[in-house]
């Protein structure tokens, strides 16, 4: 068995960082007890798998999609609606997945066949239009989706925080339904990541990279670019939907802000670009840095903003207001696309070789 599919980190620093992150996430419930750190760890797991699936499109196939959160949302809403209407049962989760994953894949297939024929720019525009229409639709169909309020739902007993399996005996931490949910999330995200790693290192993945480098040449060599791009899109969409379902289980809530908002799309873009496009390991590094920054730096921005307001400096309080988080992300995003297109992982690999 080759869990890494022969695609090693190829850099000492990168290997150490990846090991630290994976071990940290694997032991998170015991190393960092408490509700907030566990939330952060779960969010990192989710964004690693989500960003990795997006990297299959952006980094490996060279197409920009703005509809990735739509597929993520399809998964989230699928599980949420099933659990909400059928009650906290395992078969409800199964049914939700059984409906959500194929619908995400079909939607991706339709969009892909429709728009990947022409140009990457076309695809980017159409995904943006479809995704925004979907977001509006989800908030309008309130009988189904709960509208802007979203849906709160109960999860099966094994996953509920109140269920205690071992009370305070494991390294002083109680093993509850929350811990079980976290490990479910961790294992699934890890499996999805390894699956994607397998895909990009398969002959199929090589063809995708050939298409990214030169579509005409790939076509001339006999590879059907439309079919390959569409399959990549479908695969990425299905993974995104699965991750969305996991996220819904973790939050026990699904609403437009947690699943469909454009801000999540930007998070994914930024993670992939900062981590390094075209390297799945970049998703791990990027997601970890990004989620940590979001949870701990945003608070710092608030402090800076208040301090600037007290010092009477004009404009700075507004610019550093925590709500302007996206402003700084946007600037960082532009700068990294210009100056570090290969991201952190690309830099590390280059300095080694």
């Amino acid at each position, binding site marked *: 068995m080759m869990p890494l599919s022969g695609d090693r980190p190829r850099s000492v620093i990168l290997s150490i960082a990846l090991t630290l992150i994976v071990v940290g996430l694997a032991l998170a419930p015991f190393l960092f007890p408490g509700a907030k750190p566990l939330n952060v760890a779960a969010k990192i797991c989710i964004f690693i798998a989500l960003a990795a699936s997006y990297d299959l499109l952006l980094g490996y196939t060279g197409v920009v999609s703005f509809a990735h959160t739509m597929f993520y949302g399809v998964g989230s809403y699928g599980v949420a609606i099933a659990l909400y209407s059928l009650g906290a049962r395992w078969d409800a989760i199964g049914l939700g997945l059984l409906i959500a994953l194929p619908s995400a894949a079909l939607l991706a297939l339709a969009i892909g066949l429709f728009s990947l024929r022409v140009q990457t720019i076309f695809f980017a525009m159409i995904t943006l239009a479809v995704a925004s229409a979907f977001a509006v639709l989800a908030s309008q169909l309130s009988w189904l989706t709960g509208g802007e309020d979203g849906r709160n739902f109960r999860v099966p007993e094994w996953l509920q925080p109140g269920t205690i399996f071992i009370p305070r005996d494991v390294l002083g931490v109680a093993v509850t339904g929350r811990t079980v949910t976290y490990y479910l999330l961790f294992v699934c995200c890890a499996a999805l990541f390894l699956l994607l790693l397998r895909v990009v290192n398969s002959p199929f993945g090589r063809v995708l990279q050939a298409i990214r480098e030169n579509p005409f040449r790939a076509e001339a060599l006999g590879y059907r670019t439309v079919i390959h791009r569409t399959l990549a899109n479908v695969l990425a969409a299905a993974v995104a939907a699965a991750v969305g379902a996991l996220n819904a289980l973790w939050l026990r809530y699904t609403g437009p802000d947690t699943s469909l908002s454009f801000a999540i799309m930007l998070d994914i873009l930024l993670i992939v670009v900062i981590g390094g496009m075209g390297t799945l390991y970049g998703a791990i590094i990027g997601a970890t840095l990004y989620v940590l920054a979001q949870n701990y730096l945003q608070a710092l921005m608030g402090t800076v903003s208040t301090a600037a307001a007290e010092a009477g400096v004009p404009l700075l309080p507004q610019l550093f207001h925590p709500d302007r988080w*996206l402003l700084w992300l*946007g600037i960082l995003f532009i700068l990294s696309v210009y100056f570090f297109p290969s991201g952190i992982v690309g830099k590390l690999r280059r300095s080694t070789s």
Partner: protein
Amino acid sequence: MSATDIDAGAALPKAPRDLVPLLLPAALALIALPFIPSSSTWLTLTIAGLAMGMMIFVMASGLTLIFGLMDVLNFGHGAFIAIGAYMATLVLLPLTGWMQADSVWLNLAAVLPAIVLAVGVTGLLGLAFERVVIMPVYGQHLKQILITMGGMIVAEQLLYALFGPQQIPLPLPASLRGSFAIGEAAIEKYRVVCVLVGLAVFLAMLAVLNRTKIGLLIRAGVENTEMVEALGYRITRLFVGVFMAGSALAGLGGVMWGLYREQVNAAMGGELLVLVFIVVIIGGLGSVSGCFIGALLVALATNYVGFLVPKLALITDIALMVAVLLWRPRGLYPVTSR
């Protein structure tokens, strides 16, 4: 002599005219007629649709022209729309007195400087944006999409930071408020103004593109950039000029839209960007006439469907786009070189 001998006196062969798309908006309006209970409602809806279409056209025309000439799709175009509207509030809010006055001239004295400021600022920002942000990534689609999208977000957030997150009211000037009646149909004055302004912009663009040397160069550039350059014209100047004009048009459209909605907020750029994209895709990327027809189609369809089946109005744009692309996969008027 051989049969390929060319008669020097003969006119160049004319490009075949493709008139079918031109009929679409009229056909759409006629199809809608029997479904709508009264003809006066139909007239009101049609005028509203035309007005909305003209505004969308003003915003979208710049985007499609820039794409046609430079092969750059500016995802930041929405930001210019929002900035234009905000610039108008800078002038119009202090001049509220003139706006409320019951005199056409005082109203004009407030609105004209607002438009000049909006168009000027967005034009200059377009210049800066093209030189600083877009120039390094000519020819790299992936980076263009990412960077202009990033620019859009930064601009939107800056608007929030500078003007605050609240909506800013932007009332219409007194002389443009209200409506007049044709038969039983109530026609809002401002909508007629929008139709006139949109038509003027469209005709002016057609005249510049088809009757002037610059227009000739732009059309040649759309067909083959390198050839224009090889003939000794500085294509970069053309690029800058078109980018400025396109951004300024976005600013003008933003002012029109802000006055139409009578409010301005920073999110409007992103919302309109999606609409503009749909219009540009329907028209055929790079085609000004296609963009005009696409804008009218989208706006008319939205108005009719919004009246008949309000629930469906949300997906009208997308459905229309899908229908057009199934018929013509590259839009109504595909530009040959792209």
